[in-house]
């Protein structure tokens, strides 16, 4: 009997410090970071051989890691902002509500940052004018929720198209569109001032579950 998921890729553990801190004092932590390198991250139970063109990824020497949350593979690049939130929440349920609360929180923050028309669609996508501009996942464990989202600011869509075959499952609003026709970009700046401003807006805007 196989007892474990494939441990073929190292864990994407960039926010483990936040998780540890929240476990300790039960105080919400969040982080906004501009991603520095190109990297592919697959979901906790994702099958790399299905979700990735492994040859294309390997040819470019791009690392692959596995995140704590679920969902399909994503390509991180310097055109992305990664927003992470870890907050205490009792039990292990409430995943749907947690997604909804986090999506609303991000939409409000983005509106304050000057992008008022972002809304949620699919399970947890952020959508602007029918284009996906953010993908999210949750890792839920006893007493806390770890939510992570990738905001597309100036994504390398051509690279995404090369690395990611059409995903094995898709939200209804995708309508079979290719990545380049389905994904969009948030009209936000990526400089340090803009990232800090967004982080402050999000921190101020968190009202809890």
């Amino acid at each position, binding site marked *: 009997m196989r007892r474990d998921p494939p441990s073929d890729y190292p864990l994407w553990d960039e926010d483990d410090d936040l998780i540890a801190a929240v476990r300790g004092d039960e105080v919400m932590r969040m982080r906004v970071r501009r991603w520095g390198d190109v990297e592919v991250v697959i979901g906790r139970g994702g099958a790399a051989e299905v979700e990735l063109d492994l040859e294309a990824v390997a040819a470019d020497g791009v690392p692959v890691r596995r995140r704590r949350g679920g969902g399909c593979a994503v390509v991180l690049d310097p055109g992305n902002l990664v927003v992470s939130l870890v907050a205490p929440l009792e*039990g292990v349920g409430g995943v749907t509500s947690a997604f909804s609360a986090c999506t609303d929180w991000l939409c409000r923050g983005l509106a304050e940052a000057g992008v008022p028309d972002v809304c949620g669609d699919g399970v947890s996508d952020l959508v602007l004018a029918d284009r996906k501009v953010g993908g999210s996942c949750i890792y839920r464990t006893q007493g806390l929720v770890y939510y992570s989202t990738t905001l597309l600011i100036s994504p390398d869509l051509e690279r995404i198209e090369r690395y990611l075959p059409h995903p094995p499952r898709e939200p209804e609003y995708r309508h079979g569109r290719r990545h380049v026709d389905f994904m969009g970009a948030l009209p936000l700046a990526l400089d340090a001032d803009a990232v800090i401003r967004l982080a402050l807006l999000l921190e101020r805007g968190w009202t809890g579950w």
Partner: protein
Amino acid sequence: MFEFKLPDLGEGIHEGEVLKWYVQPGDLIEEDAPLVDVETDKAAVTIPSPRGGVVSMTTGEVGDVVETGQVICVIAVDGEAAAPTGRAAEETPVGLPEAADVPAAAAVATAPKAKPAAAATTQANSAVAGRPVPAAPATRRLAREMGVDIHAIAGSGPAGRVTPDDVKTYAAGGTAAVAPAVPATIPAVAAVGADLSPVTKMAAQASSVIPFLDLEPLPDFAPQGPVVIEPLRSIRRKVARKMVTSMVLVPHVAHMDDADVTDLEEFRLRMKAKREGLPGGKLTLLSFVIRAITAGLRAAPAFNASLDPFKEEIIYKKYYNIGFAADTGKGLVVPVIRGTDIKSINEISQEIEEKAALAREGKLPIEDMQGGTFTITNVGPLGGTALIPTINYPEVAILGMGKVQEKPVVRDGEIVIRKILPLTLAFDHRVADGADAARFVSELVRNLSDPSLLLLDT
């Protein structure tokens, strides 16, 4: 034996895929230790063991899908002998009622009516010593380190949750923490803590600031008959937010009038026949109305403005970007024609065609839906005699166009048949008054009744 069923992980989530087991049959597991990882759409959940004991049986291998409520693990507790692997579920009695398995899971999914009073909590915890007490792992550790039986403590946190302060208070004086008793009303619960779903909290907050507003959770309609429940998503959700914001924030007033567009329609159809097949050749009535509205806005700047309620300022815009509501099949979008004061009717018509097509295909760029200063909604092609539109906040006014119909009217003492376009201007009464609207609409009606006036203004 304790049968552990896959708990409810969230509204609408009925199953999950097993990702990893932390134990095998025969292993000893502590209460709250990780038991199994399960993945639902986009979420991975590490489920802790609700009881300590010896794992007798697990259900579902990695990659298998298990359903909510399905027994996924059987644990022999407190010295019980572990049943032979794979047979425990059929031969052993159920340990605890299902509702007690995951006491905290409902903290977000459903809001409690009220926080329990201290006495009730104490009694509940004492009565079920051995059952998991709602408390964070850090709090449990603290209790263990301080030699305190967590079951004896009355939790002062949401839903009776034991907090670190409760543990310290109990250890210091042997007195259970006291949770304040509050009435079983939503606003009261909202005032004391975060143990509410976002929706209930929002309703409670709204109820507390708007007198007489009585927002209560909807009743369960299912007993009345079959229902289908869909989440509010995408464009529908955005429209909902916009409309509620507008209707709550803006005091709407509607002014109505009829425009005699007989001559305009005769002119339009004649020009349309000549321009058939050319860009902008559809030459819809809307393009003429946009032109007429722009002329009106230049004369009445209050309707091309925005009111900033925080700064208490009116911002008059010296540019004219007219949005038109388009039904895309997937929802309502409002493409914007920019600079309508410097564009010909033909150019406006061409842009309407292009942007409406892009909107229907879902390919309209976001910048083409932003920056509007005034909106027109035209339900005429769909029928109806009149409408009262909702202002596209933060604009100040919106024009609703009804269906052009031939109607008998009196002209020079004679009853004649004319083509009549019903118009409704909804406007923000904070910025403009009824007399302003009457003048604005009268001028609009005059311009639409005489196409030469529109052409002169081009």
